[in-house]
């Protein structure tokens, strides 16, 4: 009995101590929060302004440095360019898959190009996904003329993901190279791609190097620069992080057994390419970028076309961000964190830019408290830095790219537009894409969008 009461006394005094300590801590905590709140109020907006300005700048350097590391470590040592084919230890058979929806105008050229592949063993599967034009007739005619071509007809329109899934089901081979119905795969591309699959069993997918064909207008030329200076640099830099944000849907190759493990392509994601890239990498597969695997593509040459395409990309990125959010919290998903943070920060940046711009405008109309004033949208010494950085980024990327395309340096003159057009479109599409992704009906099927294929 005695022992028990002593026991209870000590517990009571402990708990009194504990409560006092906790009250003290709470009090201290509140003081700290008060100061932090004040500090945030005074400085947060300034921090946002700095972030809005410095983010593109530092990212540019991260991409440049990453791409240069990639170039020095791998690319530079690999022959004289895309046409200088590597020797492979073996040449396993490959299925080339072309999903087509209303591609009557272009698909003949696409398939004729595939027949030129300098690879010994392959079949071509053209999938007609419920086209309403003469696509199927053309495919059947080509299949009759060429042994290698097989045709799979989907009786009703199912979307690109289902077209790819069906082709994967009916294909004969373990390796699938998938290109869009309006893209021309360079004859050397399959060999360059297969090199990665043969280098190790970890590799689930390889993404190629899309090259823009449509270069008549200013918008076309600016995108040539963009694919080189942004997309090309980012993919190289991301190979250095170890993970890639996305395979290019227009030219991607897959190991069927990896696809099988993750359940093939999702038919409810607006960008099935970003989605499959994330699911493969979350399942610990590697994705490689192969700059020598060239694929010549058509891009929009009107602002509306470009806007629609970019909005789709932005929405697709956010959909993936939302869907795999929970799985990313796991320690075993840590290799994806860089990519996740990179994308999340870019979304945050888009909103920061919007807020900054709105406050800048508001400053002209109403009197804002001094800590909320945006002095100017034109940076002073920062402007010098930003301007020089952009020019440097273009120079580096065009230098690396001249391996694949002689004379691409001429595009430099047109690139000056790129920062303005790209960053503005990127901010606006990201802002809108988040809203679209959040509001999207759950499980809604993704459908084809008829693209703007440039001025021809």
């Amino acid at each position, binding site marked *: 009995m005695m022992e028990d009461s002593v026991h209870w006394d000590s517990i009571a005094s402990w708990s009194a101590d504990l409560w006092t300590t906790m009250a003290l801590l709470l009090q201290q905590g509140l003081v700290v929060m008060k100061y932090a709140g004040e500090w945030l109020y005074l400085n947060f907006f300034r921090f946002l302004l700095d972030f809005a300005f410095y983010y593109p700048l530092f990212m540019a350097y991260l991409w440049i440095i990453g791409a240069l590391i990639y170039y020095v470590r791998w690319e530079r040592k690999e022959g004289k360019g895309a046409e200088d084919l590597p020797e492979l230890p073996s040449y396993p058979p490959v299925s080339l898959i072309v999903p087509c929806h209303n591609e009557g105008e272009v698909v003949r050229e696409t398939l004729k190009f595939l027949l030129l592949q300098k690879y010994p063993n392959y079949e071509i599967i053209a999938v007609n996904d419920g086209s309403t034009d003469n696509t199927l007739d053309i495919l059947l005619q080509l299949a009759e003329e060429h042994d290698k071509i097989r045709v799979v007809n*989907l009786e009703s329109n199912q979307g690109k993901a289902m077209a790819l899934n069906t082709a994967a089901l009916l294909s004969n081979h*373990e390796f699938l190279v998938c290109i869009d119905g309006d893209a021309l795969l360079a004859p050397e591309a399959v060999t360059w791609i297969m090199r990665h699959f043969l280098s190790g069993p970890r590799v689930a997918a390889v993404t190629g190097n899309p090259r823009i064909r449509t270069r008549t207008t200013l918008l076309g030329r600016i995108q040539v620069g963009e694919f080189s200076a942004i997309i090309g640099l980012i993919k190289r830099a991301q190979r250095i992080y170890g993970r890639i944000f996305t395979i290019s849907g227009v030219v991607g190759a897959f190991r069927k057994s990896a696809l099988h493990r993750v359940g093939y392509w999702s038919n409810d994601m607006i960008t099935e390419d970003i989605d499959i890239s994330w699911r493969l990498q979350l399942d610990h597969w590697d994705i490689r970028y192969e700059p020598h695997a060239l694929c010549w593509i058509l891009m929009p040459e009107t602002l509306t076309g470009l806007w629609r395409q970019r909005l789709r990309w932005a929405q697709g990125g956010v959909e993936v961000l939302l869907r795999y959010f929970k799985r990313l919290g796991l320690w075993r998903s840590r290799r994806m964190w860089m990519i996740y943070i990179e994308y999340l920060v870019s979304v945050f940046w888009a909103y920061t830019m919007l807020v900054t711009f709105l406050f800048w405008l508001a400053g002209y109309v109403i009197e804002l408290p001094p800590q909320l004033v945006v002095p100017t949208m034109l940076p002073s010494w920062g402007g010098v830095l930003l301007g020089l950085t952009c020019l440097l980024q273009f120079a580096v990327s065009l230098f690396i790219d001249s391996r694949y395309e002689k004379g691409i340096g001429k595009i430099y003159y047109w690139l000056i537009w790129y920062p303005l057009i790209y960053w503005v479109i990127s901010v606006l599409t990201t802002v809108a894409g988040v809203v679209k992704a959040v509001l999207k009906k759950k499980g809604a099927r993704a459908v084809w969008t008829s693209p703007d294929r*440039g001025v021809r």
Partner: protein
Amino acid sequence: MKELIINAPTVQSLWQRTTSVIFTFIFWMIWFFLWIPLATLIAWYLGLDLVYFEMFEMEGFRAVIEDLFRFLTIVTLLGGALAVWAAYNYFRFKGREKRKTPALVDHDNLAEYFEVHAEELKRYQQEKLLTVEFDPEARIVSIQRLEKRDLG
């Protein structure tokens, strides 16, 4: 490669072509406008005094140097981190392949996943022309050989 690049100036009117060139030129000029501080510095070097006063008498250069220094530090840290990470991965995983070659997907796996008949699938995979029917939930209902005459 030449024919792959579509640069058809004739598709655009002379007006469109000229405006592209001129506007781009103007934009280059605006771009240089961003560099006015640099231009001013050069102007000072060439003998104009205001910058001298601002930058040296008022010690404005300190802020610039400080900014530039901070900037270079961050770029170096970012680039260095990436390089260290690349080197770490290189040495950590060089020549190691823990993963075994995955089992190839066979007819049975595929047939089970897509809910089709395994033996029939084997046959379909050898067919040159096929037509596939789906239900509203995007499940395969039937796969058949596509006869040209079916298309009417």
